[in-house]
């Protein structure tokens, strides 16, 4: 039996904004696989991410939704906002299900049972599924290098069950599993799992990148790069959760920018051909972590030493990115300086000087 070559879609990379036409966005894809009428909260970060991702992927796409907000809130009464094929799978089986879809399409095309191009297969796992419960199956899918894109929309907690701590919850983040009290004043003592680096280190043949909803064009381009990459790709995307982070809904995009500017969410890409990290992404300014923390209720209980700990964590991330730290941020990593107004003012000024 003659086998048929698998034809893949190659999506064009969008022009970056802020070049040439200042703040203009490039011409965006017109398809809208994610439609309104879903029951996520107002200002939902994962839903912003879902929309951008599916817009970048286009109409020839298959979405896989393991249990998480984007399944629970969006598919009540068997009605979903997905305008492309979408399937739910158990929270632990995100990777194996996606691998199965990809393998099935490859086989069907090979046997001539599916006419047309190979669809974009995207798995949208929450951080609960991607970093805790479904970690093994996702790792398996990446390891076997199925042609799919696995996205971890990282809202840093189990949100749809009512805000429980996940291994992506940051140090100091308050959840119902990590309430602050006299014994543990910072709420959560553990630092988050460095999930994306773990995936890049463990599966070096995969395209791995981190992105944030604060940089939509960058996000859409990383989705397209991941889909264009022949083989498995993994994206970890920062998506603020209004209920869990406790912030005002209009700040969703703003938080996505601030988390990068404060160094708490370094943006990088793993290049599987060269086997090296690309740390060239630079936000417009660097800010002290307090700028990010003060917008969120989940960090409201932190003391100066905890903020200093987070600043230390952020400074390490900056170092990893190869950024030279301004003196003010080094100062801000010392709790003594944080109680001192002058040092706080100095840290505030960083954003203006850079």
């Amino acid at each position: 039996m003659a086998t048929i070559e698998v034809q893949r879609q190659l999506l064009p990379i969008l022009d970056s904004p802020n070049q040439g036409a200042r703040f203009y966005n490039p011409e965006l894809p017109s398809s809208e696989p994610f439609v309104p009428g879903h029951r996520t909260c107002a200002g939902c970060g994962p839903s912003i991410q879902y929309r951008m991702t599916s817009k970048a992927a286009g109409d020839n796409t298959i979405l896989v939704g393991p249990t998480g907000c984007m399944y629970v809130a969006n598919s009540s009464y068997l009605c979903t906002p997905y305008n492309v094929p979408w399937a739910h799978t158990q929270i632990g089986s995100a990777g194996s299900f996606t691998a199965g879809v990809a393998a099935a399409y490859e086989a069907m095309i090979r046997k001539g049972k599916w006419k047309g191009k190979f669809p974009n297969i995207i798995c949208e796992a929450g951080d609960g599924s991607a970093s805790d419960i479904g970690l093994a199956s996702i790792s398996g899918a990446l390891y076997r290098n199925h042609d799919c894109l696995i996205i971890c929309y990282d809202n840093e907690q189990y949100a749809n069950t009512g805000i429980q701590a996940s291994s992506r919850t940051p140090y100091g983040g308050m959840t119902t599993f990590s309430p602050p009290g006299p014994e543990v004043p910072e709420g959560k003592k553990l630092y988050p799992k460095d999930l994306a680096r773990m995936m890049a280190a463990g599966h070096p043949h995969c395209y791995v990148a981190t992105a944030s909803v604060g940089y939509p064009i960058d996000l859409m381009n990383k989705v397209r790069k991941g889909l264009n990459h022949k083989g498995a790709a993994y994206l970890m995307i920062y998506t603020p959760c209004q209920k869990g982070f406790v912030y005002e809904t209009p700040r969703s995009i703003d938080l996505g920018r601030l988390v990068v500017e404060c160094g708490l969410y370094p943006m990088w890409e793993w290049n599987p051909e060269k086997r090296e990290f690309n740390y060239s992404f630079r936000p417009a300014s660097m800010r002290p972590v307090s700028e990010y923390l003060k917008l969120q209720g989940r960090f409201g209980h932190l003391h100066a030493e905890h903020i200093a700990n987070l600043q230390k964590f952020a400074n390490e991330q900056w170092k990893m990115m190869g950024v030279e730290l301004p003196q003010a941020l080094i100062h801000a990593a010392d709790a003594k300086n944080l109680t001192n107004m002058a040092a706080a003012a100095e840290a505030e000024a960083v954003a203006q000087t850079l």
Partner: protein
Amino acid sequence: MSTKNTHIPEWLTVPFAGITPAPSQEKGQDLFPTGNWRSIRPVYRDKLPPCNNACGTNEKIQGYLDLVKRGKYLDAYALIKEDMPFPSVTGRVCYHPCEQACNRGKYDEAISIRAVERFLGDLGQALTNDVVKPGKPNGKKVAVVGSGPAGHSAAYQLARLGYKVTIFEKSPKAGGLNRGGIPDWVLPQNVLDREIERLEQLGITIKTGVEVGKDVTWDSLKKDYDACVLAVGLTEPNSVKAEGEDKNGVVYGLPFLRDIGMGTSKVKLGARVAVIGGGNTAIDCAREALRQGAAEVTMITVEGNANEMPASPEDLHDMLEEGVELMHGRAVTAVLGNGKVEALQLHKARFQGAINASPITVDREAPSERFAVDNVIIAVGQHASLNWLPAEFKNERGTIKMDKFGRLGNTNFFAAGDIAQVGSGQPLMVVNAVGDGKRVAFNLDKVVRGEKLEPRTIPVDVIFDLNRMNMTYFPHFPRIQQEMLPTKTRTKTQDEVIQPFTEEQAVEEANRCFSCGTCNACDNCYLVCPEPCIARPERSNGMYKILVDYCKGCRVCIEECPTGCLEGVPELDFDTGVVRMDTAFAISPGLHGRQAQELKNLGDRAPKNI
């Protein structure tokens, strides 16, 4: 719970699990119109950018900058021509109040609006046919007295409204202050000639060498025309009231420039020239004097320092660069010399009040200074010459008596330009005269058509506060400076000092525009909406629409709108659209209205039917 005997409204009889309708790109997932979660609705409401507000003739500056950055130069030129008949002139001579008001000035540097305007004006000059066409003739005749900026503007607008316009100009060439008050190295004569040609192409008759009061009288204007615009300007120079001011070698600023402009100048300047006055005309005179062969030019002002001078700082800077000396805090008390001026007698002086028009105190007790000169140019303002005007329309300040619409009593005569604006507190500049001419033309049209004149009462929301916009979207970019001729050689010629923008520079500069308060199709709201409930059939300014059936009111779009054109309005301010209620079920957009109606009707229904 049993639903027996319960009224189930039509909109609740929706299909349930298994047979739910599929979502579509057009209608969304219409089983769940989530719009009833909302308490604040995002609304696109364009505000007035500060540049448009500051411009004397309210040019749609943000509008044409936006078109320029998209490369639609002809549209931009057509837009500018709505309010401004000669962008090529104002692109050179305007003192750009728009740039002073520009919000970008508070951020890095104001946008070089004048240079972009000049780019568009020059583009318009190069066109074979202008984009503006005369209006449908309405059979009415209007006379415009004076062809300066205000007269030009009024005639232009009236011709576009369909009037048969005749312009009377006293001088041998049309152009008024544009020709006579502005030196060639700022505005070359051929640029102005071309604009006047454009005016004639609109069917306007220009009669030069006709002086009102002499060749054409008030009564004949009244008899022969349906209406008349008096835009005669301020023609008579003010004197400094010094002894011996009538000596040979003393000239006045505006006539000095006018004669050079008209080509009838007989003045031959000596080596040392003093210019009296600290305004823009004085600066032009000083710079012109250098070009007329003077070796040393000194400007004598009453103002205590350069910052107090009522002049454009840029022009002042250029003048100092060309080597004009400044002498502050002095007033001329006498012109000395035997028939011909040889020197000036100066005394220390200052203004009594805070403004430059207040009376001057001269310290005559102090010893006087002698300042040797060959020529003196006095440029301390102008006043009107109104001998021809009936006495009932003159006021005690020597200007025309008129109402706030520019109308003279109950007549069909209107006054526009400097003659109407002098003493109003507005700085007298070309663009303000153009704006006045435009407004008067529209008022005249209303009067002729028998409509009532009413002042504008709509409050204007001008966006001055950068906090109303999202500045994270605007990287810092320096202003592009216009090239200038080298200081050394430019005083030897009449060549234009300031060089035009190239196309790339104009686009680059227009790109810096914040588009304050006005939608410029940046697509940001469309991109960040979590629903997504912002529809955009095409990417174009103001074509964005919010699907209120779905918008949950998260306000991300409002926060992320770079220009501040989106704003949140409490839902209760709307009496149409979504009404909040207990259930979210509705199977098609627009069902909320029916649901709301059902709820309203509940009260009328007999209890047993519910």
